[in-house]
């Protein structure tokens, strides 16, 4: 059941650049958009700029220069007056982070933390807020919700803390949920439960979801489309199904081939040689060149432009049409 394409995206990011003083360009020209009800994966290894990008969307980055456009329903978040920004945060976009322990207030019961969010973003009375908090805890799968309102974060398991975090984010009724490695700190069976929960919420509420992760398996199982970041730039973007079957950037191709599970057990894997580039001034070349087995002189001559190589497939790789398909279609 493919949803009909709505006209306007919830969020559109154009040419986002983030620089930490003096000259560490950590995000260098990132574009993507998210439609209502869509799950978009933002994927990359450490240092690719994925978490920084997420924080920039909510203007939570301090001490960094953020340039470009972050358009929330057409309004530029980066230029929004504070009052509008406060109204947009929570009700427009809300976020959950990797470490619920760090994001939750350790000295307040979780019921009170949900209540804070409800008080800030809704007009509900005290009694109605309590009822709503119980509903929210139930919605995120915390059993015996009425009693759990009084629980402190340390009394909850890691999975329950992440559920509580999600309940707080949902309290304001966001149209887009930003999730930064929401399951990385969790065990695999609990990760599975939280991902199933997030997808159920997306379907029930017709909410958008931006999932930032390093785990391609998580993306394969949950996302509609994905954006692959390398060294602060978009390597390629497209539907998860297309992208995993036929990478259109040499980095994605190399990354997928480096993972176990492709070939026979105990055969040599194909690591990507070298290391990700050090952050610094933006390169006027493809950042993957030193590690790339498809590199040609053209790749170093200038930064490859982002090109629509197929309908709804973008790639910034000069070798995009020389990469092998991964599975017989």
């Amino acid at each position: 059941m493919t949803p009909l394409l709505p006209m306007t995206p919830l969020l559109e990011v154009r040419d986002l650049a983030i620089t930490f003083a003096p000259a560490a360009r950590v995000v260098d020209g990132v574009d993507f958009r998210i439609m209502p009800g869509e799950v978009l994966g933002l994927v990359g290894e450490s240092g690719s700029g994925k978490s920084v990008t997420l924080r920039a969307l909510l203007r939570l980055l301090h001490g960094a220069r953020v340039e470009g456009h972050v358009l929330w329903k057409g309004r530029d978040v980066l230029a929004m007056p504070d009052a509008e920004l406060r109204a947009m945060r929570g009700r427009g976009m809300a976020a959950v982070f990797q470490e619920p322990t760090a994001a939750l207030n350790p000295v307040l019961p979780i019921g009170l933390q949900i209540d804070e969010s409800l008080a800030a973003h809704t007009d509900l009375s005290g009694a109605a807020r309590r009822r709503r908090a119980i509903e929210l805890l139930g919605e995120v799968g915390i059993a015996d919700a009425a009693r759990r309102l009084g629980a402190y974060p340390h009394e909850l398991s890691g999975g329950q803390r992440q559920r509580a975090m999600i309940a707080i984010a949902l309290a304001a009724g966001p149209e887009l949920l930003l999730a930064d490695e929401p399951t990385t700190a969790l065990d695999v069976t609990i990760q599975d439960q939280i991902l199933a929960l997030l997808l159920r919420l997306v379907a029930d509420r017709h909410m958008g979801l931006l999932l930032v992760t390093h785990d391609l398996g998580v993306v394969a199982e949950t996302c509609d489309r994905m954006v692959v970041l390398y060294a602060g730039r978009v390597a390629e973007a497209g539907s998860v199904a297309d992208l995993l079957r036929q990478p259109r950037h040499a980095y994605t191709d190399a990354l997928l081939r480096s993972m176990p599970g492709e070939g026979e057990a105990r055969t040599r894997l194909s690591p990507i040689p070298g290391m990700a580039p050090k952050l610094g001034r933006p390169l006027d070349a493809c950042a993957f060149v030193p590690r790339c087995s498809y590199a040609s002189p053209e790749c170093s001559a200038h930064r490859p432009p982002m090109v629509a190589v197929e309908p709804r497939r973008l790639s910034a790789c000069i070798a995009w049409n020389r990469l092998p398909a991964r599975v017989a279609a």
Partner: protein
Amino acid sequence: MTPALLEVEHLSKRFPLRRTAFDALRGHPRPILQAVNDVSLSVARGEALGIVGESGCGKSTLARCLVRLHDPDSGTIRYDGADVLALAGAARRAFNRRVQMVFQDPYGSLNPRMTIHDALAEALRVHAVVPPAAIPARVAELLALVHLPPDAATRRPHAFSGGQRQRIGIARALAVEPAIIVADEPVSALDVSVQAQIVNLFLELQERLGLTLLFITHDLRLVRHVTHRVAVMYLGRIVEIGPTPALFAAPRHPYTQALLAAAPRLVAPSLVAPSLVGGRRRREAATRGELPGGAAIPAGCAFHPRCPVAVERCRRELPSLTPRGTPWPVACHLAGDPA
């Protein structure tokens, strides 16, 4: 079958937990964390045995017992026929040389003020592996073995990337010429593209040096790729142990089945058509409930509160790890049933 190089029988390790002053005054006993509970396994020379499980399943405690960083409360460990727990003095030091550990965070296990040469030379000197005059040449050999450049010797740990540091950790373990490497989540802190380098190094070292490998991880993809046999642990016990490819293809214990179902697979979603919804592959979560802590292990089969097929017997009776008409031992009352 080749004789076992390392043999563990009925190994248990408990940790007493703190209790509050209030509980102490009321005479409550100290809570006990049962980290490893009656674990038996054996590893053959040259074999790669995987130990998988989620946090708190006891896999790291088991690893530490094997290298004697923890003293088990009960059970036996035999290395090449000798009772390891009874070793003392020179014999114990000799055992320490034979079984070496590689940790998840090599930065935490390397002295930041020592050059790589000094760190490796220390291990060579302490165990008198080579005469002092031969140490520089041996350090160079070790660096070459783990594919680090010779000039790495003069640098300190901070100068290296995560993957290089793990190579140094492996080189130091190899310095004393061990027969067994116990690797506890050796690549979990590394980026995917770097993990492959370290995995390859382990495979290569096993071939070149005939090393025996105990590979402890939560990552099922890695275990599938690296190991010959795998033991699945849940709350301190092995629930299933068998040859990796066959066990992954047809797991017999409901926990193993849930674990494998929960692990995200890297397959393009359109290739899994039946469960395809709106371009995403997602079904119900594979398990319900959370892992209880090791201080509150459920009676009977520890997995029964989360098990989709548990029956009354599972609540009462602990299933032993034994072949039940199955090709390998499974600790599940229902494993042999045709249903």
